[in-house]
């Protein structure tokens, strides 16, 4: 099992790693703020090929992370590389990238077919090719029968599948899917999951988000856990699953005013322990409630203008976080 060591720059890579970087999605110390509001903070991650689950409760930063890797948002700080390219640098990457967003919205007045076909034409494809790719995509999501009907008349599940078809229509190498199972009935869910597995087997990178862990952990090769804008753990799922037992999460933090942070944290009873490092540049915190803790930490950082170097979850605590997230999957919303 691997742990996120939040702050190791990926800038000096050995040759095999460089090659790997061209097949991976790499976040290097990426932060995104919406004005004052934290989206994600200091994310350092490498997503290798295969299926990656991005899991966290509402507002944990899943969509933010996905919008960042697809160039819809620009990071406030840090760098992102998708297959070695910066998502905001040029339009070339989008030949290989498909993104099914969380927005249940369509261009007005189009049929399912027109929706997919039209954007393939924007890709610059000629009619015959766009037409055949459109039918292939509709076929894969089982929407051929409704192809000539207006999207406005679709059910929620059909709209979800139409957007999925659009995202895969140009046969991307990287497929980013924001809560793709939302609104699907069990049948459709099983079909769509089978589709993801098939695409992954064809060599596609797939990143799937969900706020329900068990929904994605069965199909994911690795899972990234997010909480309040922080990556709290990432690693391969089988390792994570084996030992689940409850104990407080231990967080290590390095910043410029650790004693101030410690005193603020201590005002709350869900913080069990906060001890300063000898060098006065860091502190160790133990807490029972990851979510409230991270929320609190964010506001302390913003309110006191604290310069944070790293925030890491100490090894061995992944399972506690995992447990926390499973335990809250129902109420998490």
């Amino acid at each position, binding site marked *: 099992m691997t742990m996120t060591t939040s702050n190791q720059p990926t800038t000096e890579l050995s040759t095999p790693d460089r090659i790997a970087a061209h097949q991976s999605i790499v976040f290097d110390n990426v932060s995104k703020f919406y004005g004052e509001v934290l989206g994600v903070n200091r994310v350092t991650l490498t997503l290798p090929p295969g299926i990656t689950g991005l899991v966290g409760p509402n507002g944990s930063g899943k969509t933010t992370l996905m919008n960042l890797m697809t160039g819809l948002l620009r990071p406030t700080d840090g760098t992102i590389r998708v297959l070695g390219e910066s998502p905001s640098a040029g339009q*070339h990457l989008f030949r290989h990238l498909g993104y099914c967003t969380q927005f249940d919205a369509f261009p007005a007045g189009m049929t399912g077919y027109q929706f997919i076909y039209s954007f393939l034409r924007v890709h*610059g494809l000629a009619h015959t090719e766009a037409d055949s790719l459109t039918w292939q995509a509709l076929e894969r999501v089982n929407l051929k029968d409704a192809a000539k009907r207006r999207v406005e008349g679709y059910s929620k599940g059909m709209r979800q599948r139409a957007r999925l078809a659009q995202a895969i229509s140009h046969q991307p190498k990287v497929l980013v899917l924001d809560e793709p199972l939302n609104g699907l009935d069990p049948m459709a869910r099983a079909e769509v999951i089978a589709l993801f597995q098939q695409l992954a087997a064809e060599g596609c990178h797939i990143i799937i988000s969900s706020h329900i862990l068990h929904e994605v952990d069965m199909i994911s090769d690795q899972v990234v856990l997010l909480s309040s804008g922080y990556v709290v753990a990432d690693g391969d799922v089988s390792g994570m699953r084996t030992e689940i037992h409850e104990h407080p999460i231990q967080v290590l933090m390095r910043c410029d005013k650790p004693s101030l942070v410690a005193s603020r944290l201590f005002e709350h009873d869900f913080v069990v322990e906060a001890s300063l490092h000898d060098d006065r540049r860091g502190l160790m915190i133990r807490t029972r409630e990851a979510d409230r803790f991270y929320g609190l930490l964010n506001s302390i950082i913003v309110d006191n203008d604290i310069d944070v170097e790293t925030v890491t979850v100490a090894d061995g605590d992944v399972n506690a976080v995992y447990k926390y997230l499973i335990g809250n999957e129902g109420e998490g919303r």
Partner: protein
Amino acid sequence: MSGLSVPETAQHPSLGQDPRAEPQTGSTDWGMMGRQLWGVLRIELRYSLFSRRFLAVAFLALAPVGLLILWALTPVAKEIAGGGSTQAMSMAAWIYAGYLSTSVFLSALILFMSLFRGDILQRSLHYYFLSPVRRQILVLGKFLAAWIAGAVTFATSTALIYLLCFLPLGLSGLSRHLFQGPGLGHLMIYAGISVLAIGGYGCIFLLAGLFLRNPVVAGVLIFGWESINFFLPALLKKLSVIFYLQSFYPVPPPQELFAIVAEPISPWLTVPGLLLFMVALLALASWRAQRMEINYGED
């Protein structure tokens, strides 16, 4: 920069590199960009022509036509007919100036201001942003679609209006004015001015739509700017659309006589000038679109 070494193909995003993106024939980029532009145009033409927006535009274009038909039946019209085609010509100029600054202006606002805002409001802009298409092409495609829709509409309605101004002269008087007098030439010039006006104002509103949320604010600001144009120093005058358009008027409209006399310029300079002005605004719009993030939640 990070120390990642990026292969040539990735560093130089070129449209011709996808295996599906056309056989490599040296400079395939233009062909690809042309097809992409058509891809954008297809979608946007549908928006511009088959939407509620366009109903408003059609109303603005045709309402004056209806009014003129009613007017042609009144005794005032007969009086003008008594004055002959010269009087009708200056009346046409006067009506056209009003039409330009209201109908054409407002229609440009409606057609162009929502080119990006409309997509943001209906939360569909990301489909474009996730396509491998340059933002310049996106801006150009959207602009051209709205321009085509507006140009066709207003060239037609301008011609109708012009013809109606001469209707009181009777059909024979009208055809004499058109084919023996300067009528046909003037009609084409007015239609041309409408086409240029839609494009010129369109660029401004496209740009405004990328910066401002509220179309009313943008409309008032730009209307104000265009209206005070007569009083501006020469350099600032050149930063408005009406400045260029006025130089084309075949007959000066009565209330704007002095402005024309003050600054006579040749159409040979104004057409390139106006086009340059439009290109500059579109470039600015592309630059802005390039920096745009998808943040629907903010609205």
